[in-house]
């Protein structure tokens, strides 16, 4: 049987990831008054980051939109590391 890849991005438990543009990153870092390294991290080897649609590279910042039990929708940002 041939293994078919499951489209993980469409899975309901996988939150929406997107790469942030340079300006958006600068703005984000300014709002929280932090350096890039102080963001939470995500590995390049993370299945979501490896997906073609995301195309994130080391040093990129991804925005994650999650469903939250307390706030409805919640935003989070992660720095891609190797």
């Amino acid at each position, binding site marked *: 049987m041939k293994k078919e890849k499951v489209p993980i991005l469409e899975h309901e438990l996988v939150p929406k990831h997107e790469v942030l543009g340079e300006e958006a990153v600068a703005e984000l870092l300014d709002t929280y008054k932090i350096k890039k390294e*102080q963001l939470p991290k995500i590995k390049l080897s993370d299945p979501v980051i490896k997906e073609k649609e995301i195309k994130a590279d080391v040093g990129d910042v991804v925005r994650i939109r999650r469903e*939250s039990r307390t706030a409805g929708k919640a*935003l*989070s940002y992660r720095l891609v590391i190797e």
Partner: protein
Amino acid sequence: MRTKKIKGIKFGLLSAKEIRKMSASRIITPDTYGEDGFPIERGLVNQHIGVIDPGLRCKTCGGRMGECPGHFGHIDLEAAVIHIGYAKLIYRILTATCRKCGKVLLGEEDRNRFLEDIERQRERQADVGDVVKLLFKEAAKCSVCMYCGELQQRIKYDKPTAYKEIDEEEKERRLMPTDVRERLERIPGEDVALFGMAPKNARPEWMVLTVLPVPPVTARPSITLESGQRSEDDLTHKLVDIIRINQRFMENRDAGAPQLIIEDLWELLQYHINTYFDNDIAGVPPARHRSGRPLKTISQRLKGKEGRFRGSLSGKRVNFSARTVISPDPDIDIDEVGVPEAIAKELTITVNVTERNFDVMRETVRRGRTHPGVNYVRRSDGRKVKVTESNYETLAEELDIGWKVERHIRDGDIVLFNRQPSLHRLSIMAHYVMIMPGRTFRLNPTVCPPYNADYDGDEMNMHVLQTEEARAEAKILMAVQRNIISPRFGRPIIGSIHDYITGLFLLTRGEKRFEKEKVLDILHKIDIDDLGVPAGTFEPPDGYEVSGTKGDEVRPIPYWTEKQVFSMILPRGLNLEFQGKTCAKCVESGEECKKEKCSRDAYVRIQDGNLVCGIIDENALGSFKGIIIARIFRQYGEEITKVFIKNVARLAINYIKQVGFSFGISDEDIPEEGKEQIREEAVHEAEEKVERLIRAYEGEELETLPGRTVDETLELLIMQELGRARDYSGDIAERYLGIENPGVLMAKSGARGSMLNLTQMAACVGQQSVRGERIKRGYRGRTLPHFKPGDRSADAHGFVRASFKDGLSPTEYFFHAVGGREALVDTAVRTSQSGYFQRRLINALQDLEVKNDGTVRETRGTVVQFKYGDDGVDPSKSDSGKFVDIDEVIRESIKVET
């Protein structure tokens, strides 16, 4: 004070050279004290390595006892010995390096790759352990050295501290510690870096000891027993052993003893040094004291809960604390604690004597040690003087500004009160002291839930705050009334409990008419000035004496209703609507909620602080629920809520005292016809149904449930049927007992117990289970010899048809014990597991902090959460975890408009 900043911490191994350099004395004699009672020169309790005898001076630094911190000494080992703590690492290094040239068995390429990996991990401040582990695995594969061509041999690690080399012919050869050391010495410095070690700080051969550091005597003080005999510390005992064997080894070797004896002694020296470091090695018998008690050596001093880290550094014993049994006192405030006078006389607060408090302090000192007095005073020069029977008067005269006075705690002082296990922050709260006679701490019963306390012998701790800052913090952050709303679920954790709820339930249920005297009685000790307009008047019944009336004059008596009486303690302006605990959930079954016209009076409506309708029960005022309390807290604040909780308790007690309330064995009695009904309609019926199910099963007619086997289906159906039987018998029992039954009343109002408890006591205990299944363990095919093998009937598998009141039959009793044991084991396992889990969580989360911008960050400033809990809400200031109750806001605003 000059401060210094730590730039870094260097970890490494002690080299033989370093050990000698830091040593103040070379120890050669195993003896401690000489016959003259003075420490022996070059002995283990040598005056060069620290003093523990008063009056003697250290021969190294000249300090007296207490001044001299102690100095290390050393023992020159006659034979090299493996350091037990590094035994495994030595083995790994041996397998990873060439036996001839000492280089790491890796090609140039691999070498560089690993070096880079290690460097990268270092930069990231991450653990290099994983990389090094991989390297060892890689290097051990190599069988021929790529640098010198030497054929490698397999090395065997013989726990705890022996290494053997196996050659091609499978012959074993022991590697003595000296051989090991030689090999490790050959490893070039560049290669040492591959093990994640810095060759400057940690050469691998330093893991093989040739010199043993001797800790200062101050780290292993001897104690003098009452008999005047000296008793040495365990470490000293161990060092004595080491020196003795070391000496014997030397003597034997110098005398040219046979190799066998030398090796034996070498082995023995290794054993003593092993147990000196760690007396808890697997497979090694622990070194014992003469009495047979295992010695407490270095590792034991550091390890575990009572070890140096967890026991002496993370946690210490504290001063200014007290502990005793708690007992209830409903007459003190919820933020007070009754403190026995005996405790108050021991605990003190240090007060600086100033111009402004001078007279008061002099008065306090003049009282001496009698209760609100003083224990110590400290003069302006820092000298501490104990206040005694003979000197307190002179001290009061001498008292001057700039002195410090350690005065007793007294009424109104703020203290921290705690009950272990401290599982959440409400386990430690600030209370105000109230000095009382007796020997127990007194605690208002309404504050039991946050501490999870009861009065069956619980003990609690009290801590007296010593600085003004601490007192301010406690008052603002830790006061009981501030913590009425639990940060766990955003609802009140302090509220009415047990009899308070029963009392309120009894008061607000049914239509009652109270004349003025009764009302005043119920409101006794509650601060109310105005009873308001009475609801109406009634004609006095015959023989009723009305004060102030003469002869046959009939004067109607004004009365107040039960709802009015309750309303008197509600704050004005409170509007609230909710369903009480007795609500039949009409809405869920598709019917309309009748609200005010509810036949059970379960719909509570409060308008402008007046209880219009509804019975007050657990939902309204209970701890963990407390809708009214939550509302008052949000609308009126801490202080009013505190007063309200106190008033509610008073009201409840006053009323329940008036009407009386009790529960006894006879309250579980059901009339004979009821018992008959339970036996026939519930239990017998169910048992027959079970029989039918079994017959269907045996006749292979049973319809299998999806996803289950036939056997499982049968079990499930039987369980269901018997469960129903118990519920049904409970319903019957409830009908016969009626709401007036105190047990039912408590269950329905939420005061204590459940209908299930009552069912089991009065009607039928029901099916006993182990792991959610009927009981089936025991003999082959049956649970007990009383039954036939293969019997699947209800009573053969743990159905208890009797009630507790009736008494259980022997087999029923047995099954009940089986089920009960599981519950017992479960709680024991759960507490230990959740305790450990809590410890791990605390260790992981203790440094996280919510910053002013709402982000959660760890110490390096790295963001963990962009907004605390995603919504930034502090649950202890929320409404059941929500920011606002939208419905309520809308309802309020509509009301304002109309």
